[in-house]
């Protein structure tokens, strides 16, 4: 028996994305045939507005060229409209008689523009705004005529009006509602938008209804008459009053439709052999018109077509962005609110900034931003995550974007950046390069940007900026995944949380068993998931799950830091930053014996020996006779200390002594990411405890503990956790806090990111309020660290010797 046959009707973005997902999962499952009514291969409909505005060409917005279809063996029928589905014989027939048999049929017929039922709506010069043909007609009319009327002040209407104005036409927008974008904006934001569009030369007639379109002498439309009698000259009329799911074909075939082709959560229609995705679909009574939900639908449909059968589409929350260059506007969710909601607003009419956030039960449910939309993606993420915001409520309106504060000249608002401005300081990627890649390569996610431009792929401090650029370029098409639902990597659809839960619930103790149970798509994962799984296993089942050296990246495998030339650096441990004459002498001897080219003091109060050949590592460790500083690991790094009451005339507590105690307790602790501590002997805080994962500040009556600080990509000031009296309490609270992080944090999540996700109050509840739980957490940490080992001493004794020896031929 040959391959099964899949026929797709409709060659638009949702349908082709479904095919792409399907080809990824099961490239050989089907012989595929595609029918498209338009004469073009799949293009990015979202970018028709920049084409109309003269900012891009048609060629720029093609997503899948003819070669793509050929490469995947897809039979493509362009310019052929399917007229009939013969469900009995499982065959579709096009208007020119072309037929195709199917085992599975995918309907992606999209939507039709709604034409107002007024006299004259079929005159020449009256068009909709939907496809390349409409766009061409507008560009053509702009060259030959003067007056345009756009009926409808929604997203499409305004983008059309703006484009026509830029092409020199005199444009009036006629809108039925009292303000523009009444489905996306409240009245205040709508008026602000109107003002800035008026400044660009557009005219508006609001609260007006069209009565008829009047033909001129040539037979072409010449004027629009409104219900109140007003007549506007118009040689071009663009109807942009809404779209209707295109269900004619499905209805004629007897498939159940109600405001769209009705599908279940697996995107299956009432005929089990027929699936449907995109704007033609009604899912739980909703037909979506933005591309992000349609891509989610496509992913689910592909999963079922590939016989995987695990995806469910459960509906989407959508956000909106108007793609008119220079106008920043963002809205999402329920931005009107009601009796049970509260609002936080900022209204600076002169400055052109308006922000409104709608909150219900301490959760963000909607918002409108005008003039300053930099934090739009962040708000949208909070909304999708349904995160409890009461802790951050007092500064919610001022935003707290994920933008790191270094590496991009302090820029935090993508819209205000010039094309030449550097976005990614690690890889030297400018805003212009990213925008170009988004447009020309058809990128839709942050991961796409990372892969294609390398921006945000190193330190990640510009990830927030890249997200802003993405959302500004493709508008509502960009939807970040809810953060606790982001897949671990491309090998699986499961999130970090799901993986952690499964490991615990199913008592999984090996990487193989996790991959088998969660149906990993690859045989042995990748460099992203394997280290994460290794950590989750060891932290969930200490003593039972075995460390897998092959799932450690090179630094943790070699127990030294790889450098750009392939040599390594060695940082021996100096407890609390203290050393001795004997240690210094040995370090000096090692440096001479192995001809160490660079010796440097680190920020963590230690000494770094750089430029050591891998074959020399074991000898260096043996001669040093000092334990590993773990300067290479997702583990406890250092406890930085000031000289404290031991020497300092201001000191109130023995900072060095406390630091050494903490560092000894935590030695060899493996964690989701690196962990740094500091202890200062008085509030002058010379050890800079305010930017550490755990910062301890001595005061006359005891110690204050601060948590979640960070001094790197994004400077984050640590937050107060608790005040305690004794050294023992410092060890217990700090230990319990770090154990909670170890048990709950996602791999590569620093304490500040983990706290941002779960909230400081959660950590306080578990560590400060709940004494029993605190003691249990601390006990678990101590039990795990009971068999802490010095990896350097083990390797000197012969462990993993192969790792350090080269073969010679």
């Amino acid at each position, binding site marked *: 028996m040959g391959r099964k046959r899949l026929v797709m009707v409709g060659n638009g973005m949702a349908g082709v994305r479904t095919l792409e997902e399907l080809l990824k999962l099961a490239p050989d499952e089907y012989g595929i045939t595609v029918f498209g009514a338009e004469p073009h291969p799949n293009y990015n409909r979202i970018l028709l507005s920049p084409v109309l505005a003269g900012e891009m060409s048609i060629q720029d917005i093609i997503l899948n060229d003819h070669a793509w279809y050929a490469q995947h063996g897809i039979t493509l029928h362009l310019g052929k409209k399917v007229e009939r589905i013969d469900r009995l014989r499982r065959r579709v027939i096009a208007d020119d008689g072309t037929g195709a048999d199917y085992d599975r049929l995918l309907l992606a017929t999209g939507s039709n523009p709604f034409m107002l039922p007024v006299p004259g709506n079929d005159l020449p010069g009256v068009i909709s705004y939907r496809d390349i043909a409409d766009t061409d007609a507008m560009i053509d009319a702009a060259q030959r005529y003067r007056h345009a009327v756009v009926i409808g002040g929604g997203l499409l209407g305004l983008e059309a009006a703006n484009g026509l104005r830029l092409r020199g036409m005199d444009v009036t927008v006629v809108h039925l509602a009292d303000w523009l974008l009444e489905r996306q904006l409240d009245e205040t934001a709508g008026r602000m938008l109107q003002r800035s569009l008026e400044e660009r030369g557009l005219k508006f007639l609001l609260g007006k209804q069209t009565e008829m379109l009047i033909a001129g002498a040539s037979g072409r439309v010449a004027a629009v008459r409104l219900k109140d009698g007003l007549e506007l000259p118009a040689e071009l009329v663009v109807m942009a009053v809404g779209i209707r799911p295109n269900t004619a074909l499905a209805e004629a075939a007897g498939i159940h439709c109600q405001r769209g082709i009705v599908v279940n959560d697996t995107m299956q229609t009432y005929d089990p052999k027929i699936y449907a995705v995109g704007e033609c679909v009604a899912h739980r009574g909703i037909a979506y018109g933005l591309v992000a939900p349609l891509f989610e639908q496509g992913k689910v449909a592909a999963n079922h077509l590939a016989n995987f059968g695990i995806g469910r589409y459960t509906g989407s929350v959508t956000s909106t962005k108007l793609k008119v260059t220079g106008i920043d506007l963002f809205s999402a969710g329920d931005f009107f609110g009601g009796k049970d909601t509260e609002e936080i607003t900022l209204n600076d009419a002169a400055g052109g900034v308006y922000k409104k956030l709608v909150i219900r039960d301490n959760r963000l449910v909607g918002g409108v931003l005008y003039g300053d939309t930099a934090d739009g993606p962040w708000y949208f993420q909070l909304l999708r995550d349904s995160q409890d915001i009461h802790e951050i409520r007092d500064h919610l309106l001022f935003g707290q974007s994920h933008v790191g504060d270094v590496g991009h000249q302090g820029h935090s608002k993508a819209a205000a950046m010039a094309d030449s401005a550097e976005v990614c300081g690690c890889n030297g990627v400018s805003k212009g390069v990213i925008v170009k890649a988004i447009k020309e390569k058809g990128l839709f996610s942050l991961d796409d940007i990372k892969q294609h431009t390398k921006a945000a792929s190193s330190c990640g401090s510009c990830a927030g900026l890249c997200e802003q650029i993405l959302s500004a370029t493709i508008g509502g098409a960009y939807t970040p995944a809810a953060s606790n639902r982001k897949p671990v990597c491309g090998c699986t659809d499961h999130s970090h949380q799901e993986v952690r839960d499964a490991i615990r619930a199913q008592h999984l103790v090996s990487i193989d068993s996790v991959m088998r149970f969660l149906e990993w798509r690859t045989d*042995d994962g990748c*460099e992203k998931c394997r280290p994460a799984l290794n950590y989750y296993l060891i932290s969930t089942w200490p003593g039972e799950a075995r460390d897998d050296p092959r799932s450690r990246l090179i630094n943790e495998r070699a127990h030294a830091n*790889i450098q*750009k030339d392939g040599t390594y650096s060695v940082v021996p441990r100096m407890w609390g930053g203290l050393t001795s004459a004997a240690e210094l002498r040995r370090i000096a001897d090692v440096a001479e014996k192995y001809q160490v080219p660079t010796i440097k003091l680190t920020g963590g109060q230690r000494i770094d020996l750089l430029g050591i050949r891998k074959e020399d590592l074991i000898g260096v460790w043996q001669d040093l006779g000092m334990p590993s500083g773990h300067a290479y690991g997702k583990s406890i790094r250092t406890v930085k200390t000031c000289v404290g009451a031991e020497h300092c005339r201001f000191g109130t507590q023995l900072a060095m002594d406390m630091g050494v105690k903490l560092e000894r307790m935590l030695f060899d602790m493996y964690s989701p990411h690196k962990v740094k501590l500091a202890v200062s002997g008085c509030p002058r805080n010379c050890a800079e405890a305010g930017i550490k994962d755990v910062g301890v500040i001595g005061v006359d009556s005891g110690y204050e503990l601060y948590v979640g600080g960070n001094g790197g990509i994004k400077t984050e000031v640590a937050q107060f956790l608790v005040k305690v009296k004794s050294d023992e309490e410092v060890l217990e609270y700090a230990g319990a806090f770090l154990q909670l992080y170890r048990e709950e944090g996602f791999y590569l999540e620093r304490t500040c990111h983990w706290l941002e996700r779960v909230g400081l109050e959660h950590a306080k509840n578990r560590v400060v309020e709940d004494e029993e739980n605190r003691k249990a957490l601390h006990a678990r940490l101590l039990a795990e660290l009971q068999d802490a080992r010095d990896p350097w001493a083990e390797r000197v004794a012969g462990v993993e010797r192969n790792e350090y020896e080269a*073969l010679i031929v």
Partner: protein
Amino acid sequence: MGEWKSICMLEDIPRLGSRIVRSTGGDIAVFRTSANAVFALRDQCPHKGGPLSQGLVHGNQVTCPLHGWKLRLDSGEAVAPDEGCSRRYPVRVESGTVFLQL
């Protein structure tokens, strides 16, 4: 092509791991996959010269330890969208001994 040389036993290379072979023509990385297939590439990433032998092996690919480029072990080609290639050396395993053609 040059002569075949015996370099080590299969079990001297960890599964999902690699070894460096020092040769007069420069370092060569020899990899062993989970399916016990053995491949050899010049130990230099086409991107910035990172030692591929120190990377993480998964499927028939290795991820470079320096900047995360992925290279196909069977061809030495970088995985798209990256572009570049590292030289491939023929390898064969006979009765547990690994031979490399230099």
